[in-house]
């Protein structure tokens, strides 16, 4: 069975989402999509359920709100277009009903019988003209329906009107399948939001919610998950504003993505009115969720943790939240940074230098008061190639017993407070 969609809107994104209904998605003229439901007829509880799934998918793309949308379920792809002529909304024909309905159509419907695809626009127009000429002549002969045309002897038809007329008759009889062009989605997923009525972040998030519902359907169709997001704001009086967000865990669910964007965009301000917004997913990975264990919720918790860290980093920045990831460096503040996912730390040193548990970022200039006792600890001379001056570290003990971790910067000739022993 073929489910045929015809709309004045661009159906590319919808066709992309349809891959989760059937792998056999074809396109015809602009605004036409053919879904071969036979390919997955034995999945999801039969063809009726597959059909239901496809129709539900259309709601995510708001196709049901298109007054000119025509949906036809027919036995053959080449019959779908003439059957859709004059139909408003849906025409879902059960198996075996399509032929009778087709043959009862007026002869003029022959013009709409599927053209072999893909062909150039010029070639299609030529073929359409040829059919129209044939139809005009046959009408003069007294033929009224496609059924009358189908009943003509093929030899006579070929002798009088040529080989093409025989092919067209074979198409009407269902003896010659048409060639459809497989749908090939664009590489980068992209959605555009017109921002005429968006005056606040809340309205923007509302619009993003609808957009990400579509993007989720498209990602599901392609079995992908987003690894990064890119938002391009077109402003009326200023150059476009671009914000990029790298996701620490690939995401597919629209709600999770919008929640993330709510935090990410919280501080975003537009200096002039917003005209439109383009949402792109420039980086994707294959989405293959694993089987969760009934007795071990570790994987689920790791997933929740990743989602939470992603939200945190959207709020405070990539360098503001994460787990300690260690690296080689002479400088204490560069020995580790905040990252995701958690990585195993290096082996402990046998004689680690004395360093405090709490450190300041960034380090701050300080003054050693009279009465403080300084105990020199380590001297770091590394990373001169990065412009870092040698540092003499010391533990400064205040009269009240507080201990501070300070260093003398030999280049700036100044004390800096780096941490406090608590």
């Amino acid at each position, binding site marked *: 069975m073929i489910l045929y969609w015809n709309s004045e809107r661009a159906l590319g994104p919808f066709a992309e989402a349809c891959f989760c209904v059937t792998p056999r998605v074809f396109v015809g003229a602009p605004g036409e999509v053919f879904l071969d439901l036979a390919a997955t007829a034995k999945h999801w509880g039969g063809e009726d359920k597959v059909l239901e799934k496809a129709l539900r998918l259309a709601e995510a793309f708001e196709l049901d709100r298109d007054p000119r949308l025509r949906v036809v379920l027919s036995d053959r792809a080449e019959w779908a277009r003439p059957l859709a002529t004059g139909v408003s909304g849906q025409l879902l024909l059960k198996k075996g009903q399509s032929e009778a309905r087709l043959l009862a159509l007026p002869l003029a419907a022959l013009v709409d019988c599927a053209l072999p695809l893909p062909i150039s626009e010029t070639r299609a127009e030529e073929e359409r003209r040829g059919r129209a000429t044939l139809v005009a002549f046959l009408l003069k002969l007294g033929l009224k329906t496609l059924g009358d045309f189908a009943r003509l002897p093929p030899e006579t038809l070929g002798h009088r009107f040529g080989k093409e007329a025989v092919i067209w008759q074979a198409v009407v009889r269902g003896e010659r399948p048409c060639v459809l062009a497989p749908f090939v989605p664009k590489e980068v997923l992209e959605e555009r939001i017109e921002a005429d009525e968006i005056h606040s972040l809340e309205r923007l998030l509302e619009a993003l919610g609808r957009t990400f519902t579509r993007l989720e359907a498209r990602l599901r169709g392609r079995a992908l998950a987003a690894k990064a997001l890119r938002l391009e704001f077109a402003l009326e009086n200023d150059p476009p504003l671009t914000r990029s967000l790298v996701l620490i865990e690939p995401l597919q669910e629209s709600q999770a993505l919008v929640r993330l964007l709510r935090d990410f965009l919280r501080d975003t301000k537009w200096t002039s009115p917003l005209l439109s917004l383009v949402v792109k997913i420039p980086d994707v990975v294959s989405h293959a969720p694993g089987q969760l264990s009934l007795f071990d919720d570790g994987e689920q*918790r790791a997933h*929740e*943790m990743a989602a*939470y*860290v992603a*939200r*945190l980093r959207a*709020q*405070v920045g990539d*360098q*503001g*939240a*994460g*787990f*300690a990831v*260690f690296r080689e460096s002479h400088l*204490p503040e560069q*020995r*580790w940074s*905040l990252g995701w996912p*958690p*990585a*195993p*730390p290096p082996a*402990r*040193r046998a004689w*680690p230098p004395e*360093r*405090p*548990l*709490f*450190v*300041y*970022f960034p380090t701050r200039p300080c003054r050693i008061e009279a009465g403080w006792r300084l105990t020199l600890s380590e001297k770091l001379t590394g990373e001169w190639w990065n412009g870092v001056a040698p540092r003499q570290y010391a533990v400064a003990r205040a009269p009240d*017993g*507080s*201990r501070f971790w300070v260093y003398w910067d030999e280049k700036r000739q100044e004390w800096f407070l780096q*941490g*406090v*022993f*608590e």
Partner: protein
Amino acid sequence: MVHTEVEITRGKTSGIGRGGLVRLEKPLEEVFRAAAQSPDTFLFWASDEGLLNAEALHERGLISVERLLLVKTQTPEDVWRVGQEAVETALFGGVLLKPSRLCALGPLRKLQITAERTRTRVILLTRDRVPHWLCKAG
């Protein structure tokens, strides 16, 4: 140096237990030893002034840094906000907050109620005094 720690959980078990609102005074190292009683749970740390020194924590063997989520915020208000969110997720066995300023009583009470509901151990590291009625005998 000592801290004022207020733990907001229910049902004290041992050390810093889960329950009520316990007020302790211990150095940071001791707080970590107490907070990291369950090695399988994650810990959350947020501060607006600086960060825990993950290297020193690791070298001293106080806690597995793979289970410690560190957050550095710009303002003390953000510390309270992310702390509240962290408690609400129920992902952490312990939440340690070191804001440079105490928040209003409303958010503090909300934090207390959420911590009770999610059975999360919350430790506030602040020199400011917390109202006595928020503290129950530990």
